[in-house]
């Protein structure tokens, strides 16, 4: 069953309501797209969600530094038909490194869609290029956690970065 599910989720993309492996949104390692050197420290069964620690969304250098990274590096693909939401979800490990990136895309009516690849590829690469994420601790022990960025795209330009 797990293999079947993995096959469905193969292409960095999620479709609607897949049966969870353990938790909703769990991301299994996929050797065809994930970097071999990225490892979770405490095992897949102990990866938490970023908000489980009660600190809210956190970024190294706070959110302005994240926004600045995209403002300076993203080259807008200006087009009237490039509108919607793009989520990049990934795991931050106990060392503050990120991996297992997955992309979800929708139009402004929340219907799954495909953006121009030059948009998604840029967002994915800029996210991957962020080398330092905040290390979160539970009971003084560094943990692995899921995190995501959502980009609101209007006419090919980033208008919001969430959460």
């Amino acid at each position, binding site marked *: 069953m797990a293999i079947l599910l993995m096959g469905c989720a193969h292409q960095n993309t*999620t*479709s*609607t*309501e897949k*049966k*969870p*492996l*353990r*938790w*909703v*949104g769990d991301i299994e390692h996929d050797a065809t797209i994930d970097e071999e050197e990225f490892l979770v420290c405490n095992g897949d069964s102990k990866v938490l*969600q970023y*908000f489980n620690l*009660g*600190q*809210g*969304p956190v970024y190294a250098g*706070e*959110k*302005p*530094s994240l926004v600045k990274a995209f403002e300076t590096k993203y080259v807008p693909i200006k087009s009237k038909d490039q509108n919607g*939401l793009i*989520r990049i*979800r990934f795991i931050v490990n106990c060392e503050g490194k990120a991996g297992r990136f997955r992309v*979800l895309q*929708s139009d*402004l009516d*929340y*219907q*799954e869609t495909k953006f121009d690849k030059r948009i998604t590829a840029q967002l994915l690469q800029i996210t991957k290029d962020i080398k330092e994420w905040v290390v979160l601790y539970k009971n003084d022990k560094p943990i692995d956690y*899921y995190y*995501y960025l*959502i980009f*609101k795209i209007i006419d090919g330009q980033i208008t*919001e970065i*969430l*959460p």
Partner: protein
Amino acid sequence: MNIPLLACAMIIFSSSLFSQPNCEALKYYYKDTVQYEACKKSEETQGLYQFSKEYQEILDDALRIDPTFAHAYHKKSTAYLKSGDFVTWKKLMDLAVKYDPHYNLEYRGLMRYKCFRDYGGALKDFDSMDSLGMTSDHLNLARSMCHYSMGNQETAIQLLEPYLDKEEDIFGLTGYLHLGVFYLEKHNYKKAIDMFDRQHEVEQTAENHFYMALAYKAIHQNEKYTEHLIKAKEQYLMGRKMSDGYIHPIHKIYLEDIDHEMSSHSIE
């Protein structure tokens, strides 16, 4: 960490405002035995983590009993909302709204605004509530925030001003701060300061001092500008700032904002 503000956010996200229906009422009052069975099944999620496979499967079972049981769609949707899966969340909440709009429209609208900055979509949901006779004054703050974010500051202000002298409190924990910022951006500094004073009585945050400083700066009261900027930094470093367990709220500031303002006016 700002506990009261965080607690407020947690309440909204945990859907506890939209709690488990009374199954017995479905059976005895509404005589709906199918929905009663689905409801009883959904009660088995108690104590389970909403992200877990078990939690989701119990709700799937409830929906096999009654595919119109809106509550189960709503409960299933929460984990998708929290993981940022807007596609699945919206599909599930659309079903929840379809089968029980009275219970779910407000929540869907609030989450569209809060989590996905879908201001137009949120306003549509609030308008649908109006057309169903579910108009609620307390939604005016969310409506106002949506209009403000869409660039309609005048409408945003008009939605809140009538409540300033009413007993009914629609401003909650941060409403005066938001209205103060609206006034600030419209260069109405006297009213802005009045709102920040009111906000100060609700809660002291770095944001309130920061925006207060900007208002005093605009009217050239340099002493008060400096005083509030310094207080903003103190509050920020003490963790007294706008916070939310899941998202960054509108009008939240960052240390960089305070430091930039201080350095540009040589304040240490």
